[in-house]
């Protein structure tokens, strides 16, 4: 069983290596990438089932006992995130086969995607702070590459901003890791969980925690350090945008959840109030940003910011239900947001532009695509019975139980504004007639392209509907994950083998 724990890292890395060393035609690259990602999905399923069956799984890399070596841990949160990574990976790999141009393929698009997946999975599975930094970097450099290569002016400009701010984030993270080691003498998360309270330095720990909050906050695009995201996510090929939008910011959210439960439990650092305010401001500023945009992908980009606010709000509220809500929200949002970006690509392909003013007519010309858009769009806006409704409901319920009235108000009002900005896309790109009339008519999707572009979108939409109609299984997963985080006894025992060395 435990062999599966390394698989989500090793499989994409091996696939990437294979792709670099051989398989030069784009078609073969796509085929190998698909096979590799499929294998990743199988491994992810096995891992998730293993965690369900046996509880937290642990592998000491190289066989060196914790906290000396690097521990890989799959708890419910990690396994679920790996699972959803595989899903998004499959969707984007298939979509990319229908979208990405030949020059990009020649210059390593396919292996870069695999490296990105390896980095993301590594980040979800590692139990070591410095190792997490390394996987962040793997993910980051792959994302830099995917964002920048083959790009024109816009893409390079977006990439520069993305790179600049993410490098700052990464250096903050590295400093934090160093300071954490300098204080507690360990890098193992479970070990840190035990050591930090014993230091008797709550103020100092809070300060270091804030450093991590900043590092991951930039990564997750929190207020006020989210600007790199809306500046860049609308520039690369759509498959890349989708991969980023689905996964990358959520790695930041994941890290926040992981750190601010296991390493810096909320009761120790007393940052709840700050986090609540930051989350609320992220929600509001993000959605207002979306309201100000008139480009399909830029609207979606700002929505990510706003939605990340919801997830962090769940973390900030901190009750078991709120944390489960945050995790549920994260998992749902990855699926939905990736899908929306993919749909923006289909919309552009059919109507000729990402600019809403320059597109239209899809409701009439491509009604099936319109239905496919409505599912994730209404899910994101929180309409029942789609996944996003439950995500918001859980947070509202949690806030009500904690009597956090103004948080409830923020959750609800931002939800309404999300509806508003989402319908803008619908009204402009779908309902409105195309400004260029029949001259704008692009050839419809057909054959291979139809399968490659619509297949992933349909699959992701089905997942959204499925979660919406039957939320209980995903919620149980989220709740189990939250329980493990809020009481890390089992986590610590699994990693450290029952006692302190």
């Amino acid at each position, binding site marked *: 069983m435990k062999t599966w724990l390394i698989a989500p890292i090793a499989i994409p890395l091996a696939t990437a290596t294979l792709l670099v060393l051989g398989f030069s035609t784009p078609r073969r690259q796509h085929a190998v990438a698909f096979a590799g990602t499929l294998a990743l999905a199988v491994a992810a399923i096995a891992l998730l089932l293993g965690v369900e069956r046996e509880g937290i799984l642990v592998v000491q890399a190289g066989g060196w006992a914790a*906290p000396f070596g690097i521990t890989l841990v799959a708890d419910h949160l990690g396994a679920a995130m790996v699972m959803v990574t595989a899903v998004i990976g499959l969707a984007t790999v298939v979509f990319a086969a229908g979208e990405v141009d030949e020059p990009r393929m020649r210059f390593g698009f396919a292996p870069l995607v695999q490296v990105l997946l390896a980095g993301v999975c590594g980040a979800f599975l590692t139990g070591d702070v410095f190792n997490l930094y390394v996987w962040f970097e793997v993910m980051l450099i792959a994302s830099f590459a995917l964002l920048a290569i083959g790009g*024109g002016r816009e893409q390079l400009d977006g990439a520069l901003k993305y790179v600049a701010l993410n490098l700052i984030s990464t250096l903050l993270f590295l400093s934090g890791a160093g300071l954490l080691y300098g*204080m507690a003498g360990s890098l193992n998360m479970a070990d840190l969980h035990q050591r930090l309270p014993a230091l008797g330095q709550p103020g100092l720990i809070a300060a270091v925690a804030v450093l991590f909050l900043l590092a991951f906050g930039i990564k997750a695009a929190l207020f006020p350090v989210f600007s790199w995201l809306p500046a860049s996510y609308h520039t690369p090929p759509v498959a890349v945008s989708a991969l980023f939008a689905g996964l990358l910011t959520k790695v930041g959210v994941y890290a926040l959840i992981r750190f601010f439960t296991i390493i810096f439990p909320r009761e120790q650092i007393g940052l709840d109030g700050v986090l609540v305010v930051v989350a609320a401001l992220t929600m509001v500023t993000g959605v207002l940003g979306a309201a*100000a945009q008139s480009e399909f992908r830029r609207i979606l980009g700002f929505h990510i910011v706003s939605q990340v606010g919801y997830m962090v709000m769940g973390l900030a509220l901190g009750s078991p239900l709120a944390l489960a809500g945050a995790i549920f929200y994260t998992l749902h949002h990855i699926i939905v947001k990736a899908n929306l970006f993919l749909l923006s690509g289909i919309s552009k392909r059919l109507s000729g532009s990402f600019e809403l003013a320059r597109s239209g007519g899809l409701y009439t010309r491509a009604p099936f695509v319109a239905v496919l858009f409505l599912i994730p769009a209404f899910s994101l806006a929180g309409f029942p019975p789609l996944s996003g409704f439950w995500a918001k409901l859980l947070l509202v319920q949690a806030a009500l139980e904690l009597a956090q009235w103004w948080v409830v108000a923020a959750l609800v009002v931002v*939800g309404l504004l999300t509806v508003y900005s989402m319908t803008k896309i619908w009204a402009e790109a779908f309902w409105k007639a195309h400004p260029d009339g029949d001259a704008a008519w692009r050839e419809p999707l057909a054959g291979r392209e139809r399968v490659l572009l619509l297949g992933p979108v349909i699959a992701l939409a089905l997942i959204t509907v499925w979660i919406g109609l039957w939320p209980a299984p995903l919620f149980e997963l989220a709740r189990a994950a939250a329980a493990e985080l809020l009481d890390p006894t089992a986590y610590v025992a699994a990693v450290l083998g029952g006692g302190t060395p």
Partner: protein
Amino acid sequence: MAADPHDAPASRAARLSTGVGIALALAAVVAVGRAQAGLLSGSSRLVAWTWFPDLGPSLAFHLDGLSALFVLLIGGIGALVLLYSSRYLHAHPDVVRGQIFLTLFMLSMLGLVLADDVILLFVFWELTTITSYLLIGFENEKPGARRAALQALLVTCSGGLALLVGLLLLAHVGGSFRISEWDVGVFTAHPFYPAILILVLLGAFTKSAQIPFHFWLPNAMAAPTPVSAYLHSATMVKAGVYLLARLQPTLGGTDAWFYTLTVVGAATALWGSLQALRQTDLKLALAQTTVMGLGILVLFLGSNSALAAKAAVTFLIVHALYKSALFLVVGIIDHASGTRDVTLLGGLGRAMPRTALAAGVAALSMAGLPPLLGFIGKELAYESALALAGWPFLLVTVLVLSNALVFAVALLVAYQPFWGPPPDPPRTLHPAPFAMLLGPLLIAGLGLAFGLAPSFTGHVLIEPAVSAVRGLPSPVSLSLWHGWNAPLALSLVTIVLGLGIYRLRAPLVAATGAIAARLPWTGDRAYDATLVGLQTLARIQTAVLQGGSLRGYLATSFATIVVAIGGVLAVHRAFAWPTGGESVPPTAWAVAVLILAGTAVASVTGSRLAAIAALGVVGVGVSLLFLIFSAPDVAMTQLMVETLFVVIASVALLRLPALRGPELRSRAGRTRDAALGLAVGSVVATLLLAVLTVPLDPMLGDWFVRQSVVEGHGRNVVNVILVDFRALDTLGEITVVAVAAMAAYALLKLAPPATRPKGDRR
């Protein structure tokens, strides 16, 4: 007119969608009709499946008199509307879409009135909002339709979200998500009661178009007529009324409930009927009377007396029947003559006698004349208003005035187009097919039949519903003739007044128009102003936070670092100066000075080469530092990296524009940036200094040193860590290097952007 698209046979898909929809509607009617016998005694039926056990919601449905009445209305009218719209939209390219949306709406509405679980109820509530949005925007290429759709969506959605919170609070107080499991006594005394009341009423009032949220309903007339008939008069707008009726046992009976509902309902009724008179578009006139009707319903739900409940339920049926019939008639008029403008219509009665008949019967019910059900409804309304506590005189006045206005509107809708003077020249007519006539005829006929059989209506239809609303068995017996009493007198007043208003319509319209024009603020304008305000706020905010310049983003990030970390350090007073430790050897001082000098030069020089050289000096200095502190591997690596970086940087940077020339920053800008830099540096140094005062447990390092040879088979501990103890780090690290090289290679080699078309983002 040989190739009139209206005469073409319906497509298979259109027939299929219509057939399925009608079959579902009839199935619902039949199923509930069969169960109706059991409901007469006031009992109810429950079914429930598990759904979301961890949170609480379940798939629980509940059939009692109130739901049953709604199911009959929704299913019965739904089947006829679907049949009607299959012909009405016949020539429309999107007829199938329309039928599907109508069917989906119907199912959502059925779910809404049958749901026992509040979350389930909310799910269906929002589904009706979504389907309504799609149906109002049916003519999606018309900007007006899109605006109306968005307006309806936003208004009902904002109420819906309030309702959601209200329902969650209800579930919290009631201890269950199931309405049927609540102890109705616990709510009104609970401290959450005011909040719950406000939130629930917001949901109900927005959905049922009560003042001040009424404005979306007339605008929603952008939808095709069958949609207006079904959603925006007979069913969906009654969802709010349904909710109030459903929750009256739990939330009603207080002063807050009574006064809010009565005042809002009365104001809405009066406003709607006044507005109705002013319209020349028949559909808008009907829409405004719908607002009036909804106001009346809300008004009567305010009181918890049996009489008021009876009046409310009876009027609910009356209104649903006459209003949907008249809407469908207007659709036929529109379909036949190409206009709904009453000033362009007249004399249709001879050419369209059956339509005229349907219109006439429905309008008689609307006007409240015997022997139609509308008469009974109006009599009950007067009786109930007279019995209400509070200010019966005021209420009665409002009711009489509204009813008189509605009487005039009924004449306007059913008399003027058919029997008024025909326009000159007469319009060419396109007769409606029977499928379109069936609906209005049947529905209007029901209004007559129910009026003629008052005991059946009262006992079978109204009594179970009233019992459900009041939460206790409430026998109902209706009769057409109440004897000579005050309600009858009021009815006579109403008729006389109504006739007078109809005669004096022109000056009245002018007068009310003048008043309306002076209103500083209408809901519609407020809505626009809100959206404009929102857009302005969004733009300003985005301009501030997302200015488009990297420097702004960087400055924000750095300032956040200073505020956040500095703030926490200050709050906790976590400042400390490490004492003890090693003394500073002269070599370290020298190296520090070297590094500082390099840093200073790099910061201010205007020459690229000088800057690169200075950075090289810093790098070498850092390397020496590593050497001093016993890290030979690190020192060597740093030195090699530094060398390579200088080489690469020289090659690359020489291609970039020179640094020389004016420093692009202003002096003030430089000062500000320097201050920010100093602040960040101080925060980092302070944090580090504080951390250094915590004694470090050297356990990890010691373990590595001890195990290096024994377990790792290597004497260079650092290397053993890299390739064995922490080899996973190294695996990631070399991946970074490989990818960085690949990426840089691709960036440099892949087609220069100049050869790509501008604006291409693929």
